């Protein structure tokens, strides 16, 4: 069919559009020149060794990992309890509550960051990584809620009732029924919220103060042309590690689905 061939061609062209800018990062991170321009001048790994010696970068990376892990755990927990509440109970005002929790999706991130900046100012609290986590919760909880509600809605409540009828207590029912069935949703939520927080710039820009996260560090480097190849090397590393993590998560997820009822 001719129509299909045109569509296939378009699909590959679109894929090229998506990959072209991303491939710029690794290409120039191995180029032996501090100028980011063609023609390429030769192969080097010095930008990578420079990066590994950069303590400011490592400190920022540590900060971003801390913020990302705490944000992912908290927002997934808050999303999980809220999703359970609205899918398993008949609550008055459930729609209003869901609307309120999803509100940040309709507010530009810069406004979220600035309004928290004002709050910290009034309460005389310092700018800190904790403030960044609070800001990231605003951005991440709506995502976590969406992912987890989709999972809860495809969830057969009879399984939990059957478990209770067969004499399991609440904890064992949670552990042997609810948790294994929710695991794929939980993993997806943790992954999505972690990567969102790890890469978030606009909110962190106003709240991080002197403790730079990785995007703040990168933003600072973009002003210095001689630092750019190192920044591109950093981008190439982030890309490689993320792809590895996604593959790993996929493997874990498949395992999780296959063994829901282990042990007696």
């Amino acid at each position: 069919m001719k129509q299909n061939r045109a569509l296939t061609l378009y699909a590959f062209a679109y894929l090229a559009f998506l990959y072209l800018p991303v491939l710029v990062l690794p290409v120039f991170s191995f180029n032996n020149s501090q100028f980011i321009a063609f023609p390429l001048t030769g192969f080097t790994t010095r930008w990578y060794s420079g990066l590994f010696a950069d303590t400011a970068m490592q400190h920022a990376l540590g900060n971003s990992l801390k913020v990302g892990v705490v944000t992912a755990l908290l927002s997934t927990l808050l999303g999980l309890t809220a999703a359970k509440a609205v899918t398993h109970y008949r609550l008055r005002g459930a729609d209003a509550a869901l609307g309120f929790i999803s509100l940040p999706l309709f507010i530009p991130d810069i406004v979220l960051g600035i309004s928290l900046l004002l709050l910290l100012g009034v309460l005389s609290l310092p700018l800190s990584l904790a403030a960044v986590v609070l800001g990231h919760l605003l951005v991440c909880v709506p995502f976590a809620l969406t992912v987890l509600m989709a999972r809860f809605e495809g969830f057969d409540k009879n399984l939990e009732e059957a478990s209770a009828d067969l004499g399991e207590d609440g904890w064992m029912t949670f552990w042997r029924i609810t948790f294994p069935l929710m695991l794929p949703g939980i993993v997806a939520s943790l992954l999505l919220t972690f990567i969102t927080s790890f890469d978030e710039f606009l909110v962190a820009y106003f709240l991080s103060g002197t403790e730079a996260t990785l995007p703040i560090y990168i933003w600072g480097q973009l002003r210095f042309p001689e630092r750019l190849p190192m920044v591109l090397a950093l981008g190439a590393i982030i890309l490689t590690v993320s792809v590895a993590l996604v593959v790993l998560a996929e493997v874990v997820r498949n395992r999780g689905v296959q063994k829901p009822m282990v042990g007696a």
Partner: protein
Amino acid sequence: MQKGRNSGGGYALIAPTLVVMGLALAAPLALMAVTSLKSQSGLNLSQGWTLAQYGEVLGRASYRSLFLRSVLISGAVTVATVALAYPMAYFVAFHARHKFLWLVALTIPFWTSYLLRVFAWKIILGFNGVINSGLLRLHLIDQPLGFLLYNPFAVVVTLAHAWAAFAILPIYVSLEKIDRSLLEAAGDLGDGAFRRFLRITLPLSMPGVIGAAILIFVPTTGDFVTPELVGGTKGTMIANLIEVQFNAAGNWPLGAALSLVSMAMVAVIAGLFVAAARATTRNIR
């Protein structure tokens, strides 16, 4: 807890989330509204109330044109991103043989820093960039093209790339949900491929399109990174002005008023868009 539907447990479960969101969302926004009704002298906010900031925001022609330009650029980004992503999502949902592989391939480019994905376009569109070097090498031009970078077009291209995943995935999900027997039925009843697409596939995929549009329009209006890196002076957006009020200019009341006005503007436009999209879909059916 797991048996009867006593809602008390439900309220207890959702309470922590509501408290956190109230603390981090409602309280700060209320404070922002208060700040926008003050004036500032030096580092102190005035005691009394004033509408001066809103007068400034709505009165100054340069601010009004900045609001308009931001909406136009974000609108263009939204339209471009959704229009480019739709055929891609359609291909994966209906024609691709290895769907999962395609979805992975389509999301990999987004697993690196947003700032660097934006910055990469500066390298591609720049004076010594990928496009100019390529064209020079092929002897298609003998001077680098200067009009590629530092304008609204560069902002639109960059953002249409940076936010592509937020269009592909929701549209794909809504296309994937479509009951294939509906399409067969329409075909059996004599609808051609195009009419079938217009009357069944497009309306049923509208939730994905609307979701994608909101997910892209809202955050791109608040982005000051992309305009600053690739926009030049003609590509400046409202978020750049807001950022300046909270840093270099240090005028928090004005920044708060600008933030609230742009937030309201985004909400109104998004609401109108959702209503319009729903109405059009109903008419097609």
